[in-house]
């Protein structure tokens, strides 16, 4: 049934499992995870640290191969990193020896794209993100929020359809974090990208995504799948910042909080 039903899925995971091997033994990070993401959909995956959320993104991006099951992008099994999928990591990891513009075209350069076009596109993106003045600056001259915007430009410069976001705001202070979440959500929606956001921040997940998937503790298994709707916002999707002020936000927050079984250990 699922194969036919999900023919239009942009990203699909079928019974995916992953084990890490080491001298100390093997660690089962993910067990039998199946879900699919429609084109243009914004999905958040939440779970406690160590539940395999980031591993899930590495599998979709193709830099890791599943021990069990299949990952499909556009209906085709993922064999390795490919241009359809862009991956934004937890920190910006800008190369300190490259200027902002040179950093933003890194992906295009590695993929052997037309560099003149790539530079133009990167400059356009950076200017749109308010970094037009800083194209030839070095990363160390920029603040954390600015650096993460460069990282976003670097991801989008290669024009992926699917954008994977691995706690992209975790390293930022709380104000920058909320402001940047607004910007990023807006940019991804406007360019109608399919987005998968991994986070342990429940508020971030609810405010940005249309769907929140909850993973259990290790080994990560799919625990539940929630559609996020904001009826009070007149049918339209509120910005992440506005979403935080709706009555639905609190409702979702409370039910997800209970589901995560958050408790402080030690």
């Amino acid at each position, binding site marked *: 049934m699922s194969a036919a039903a999900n023919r239009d899925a942009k990203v699909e995971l079928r019974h995916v499992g992953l084990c890490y091997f080491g001298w100390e033994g093997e660690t089962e990070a993910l067990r039998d995870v199946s879900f699919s993401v429609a084109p243009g959909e914004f999905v958040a995956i939440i779970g406690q640290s160590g539940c395999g959320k980031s591993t899930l993104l590495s599998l979709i*991006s193709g830099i890791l191969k599943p021990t069990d099951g299949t990952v499909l992008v556009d209906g085709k099994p993922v064999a390795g990193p490919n241009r359809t999928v862009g991956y934004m990591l937890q920190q910006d990891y800008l190369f300190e*020896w490259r200027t902002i513009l040179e950093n933003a075209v890194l992906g295009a350069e590695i993929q052997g794209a037309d560099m003149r076009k790539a530079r133009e596109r990167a400059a356009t993106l950076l200017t749109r993100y308010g970094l037009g003045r800083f194209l030839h600056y070095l990363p160390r001259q920029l603040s954390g929020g600015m650096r993460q915007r460069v990282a976003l430009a670097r991801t989008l410069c290669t024009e992926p359809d699917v954008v994977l976001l691995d706690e992209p705001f975790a390293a930022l202070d709380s104000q920058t974090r909320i402001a940047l979440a607004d910007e990023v959500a807006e940019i991804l929606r406007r360019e109608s990208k399919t987005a998968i956001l991994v986070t342990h921040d429940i508020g971030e997940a609810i405010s940005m995504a249309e769907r929140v998937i909850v993973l259990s503790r290790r080994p990560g298994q799919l625990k539940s799948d929630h559609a996020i709707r904001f009826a009070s916002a007149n049918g339209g999707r509120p910005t992440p910042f506005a979403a935080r002020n709706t009555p639905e936000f609190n409702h979702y927050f409370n039910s997800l909080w209970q589901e995560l079984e958050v408790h402080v250990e030690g």
Partner: protein
Amino acid sequence: MSKVDAAALANPSLQYRVWLKRERRGRIAVRTMQLLVLLVLLVLWEVLPRAQLVNPLLTSYPSALWPTFLQLLKETPQQASILSHTWATVLATVLGFTAAMVVGMVIAAALWWWSALYKVLDPYLVVANAMPKTAFVPIFYIWLGATLSIYGMSLAISLFITILMIYSGFQGVDSNKIKLAQTFGASKGQILTKVVLPGSVPTFIAALKVNAGLSLVGVIVGEFQSASLGLGYLIQYGSQIFKMNIVMTAITILALVSSLMYLAIAWLEAAVMRRR
């Protein structure tokens, strides 16, 4: 984006000017003390032998250096002027440490590329690095002959430490930067040229600093054994015929050569690091 405000720079506050003045005075004081230390050493070196507190035959005098130098310009053992001796040593040193850098970098890159190779060779590299390479001077002389053995010693003495330093520099490159390149589908060659090599530039500079000194040691020791040209030879010759003037002049030139190499590397470092 300089943290210093341009307007404030054009119109410094009184407190800032006071601070600047104090900092400048501090710098001048340090330089003055450094020169003073040198001066005291030179004066002691001149006065103690003249006062017969140490035997002048053993130490010579600083004031004898310049006349000796002038005399060595005209005639030296082996008929070469002291400039030719200096040149021979400098050339061997530069060749030695350039070769050590290039060969060391290539080997380190190969070890990075084939990690199994590194796992196998690791203990041998560590032992080779810990061995006193100077023990091989006589063997190199037999194997390589007079001139090549000097170059060989200069290379051998700095090669293993270069490999180990650069390899650990490669290992020290943030694995998340490599992961980032992989998300774009980077090949191993691209990871090497776009991430690992440019990320290791500070290590290259550190290796250069270590090597400049080590290669000079290699050349001098090599020359002790086998040369008929070079400052090492001059030192050996001078001490054999008990002419401390020649020995001390050669050693002073060595000190100058080391200082110049240090300055050259410091300049290179500043030029490279400006972009970081």
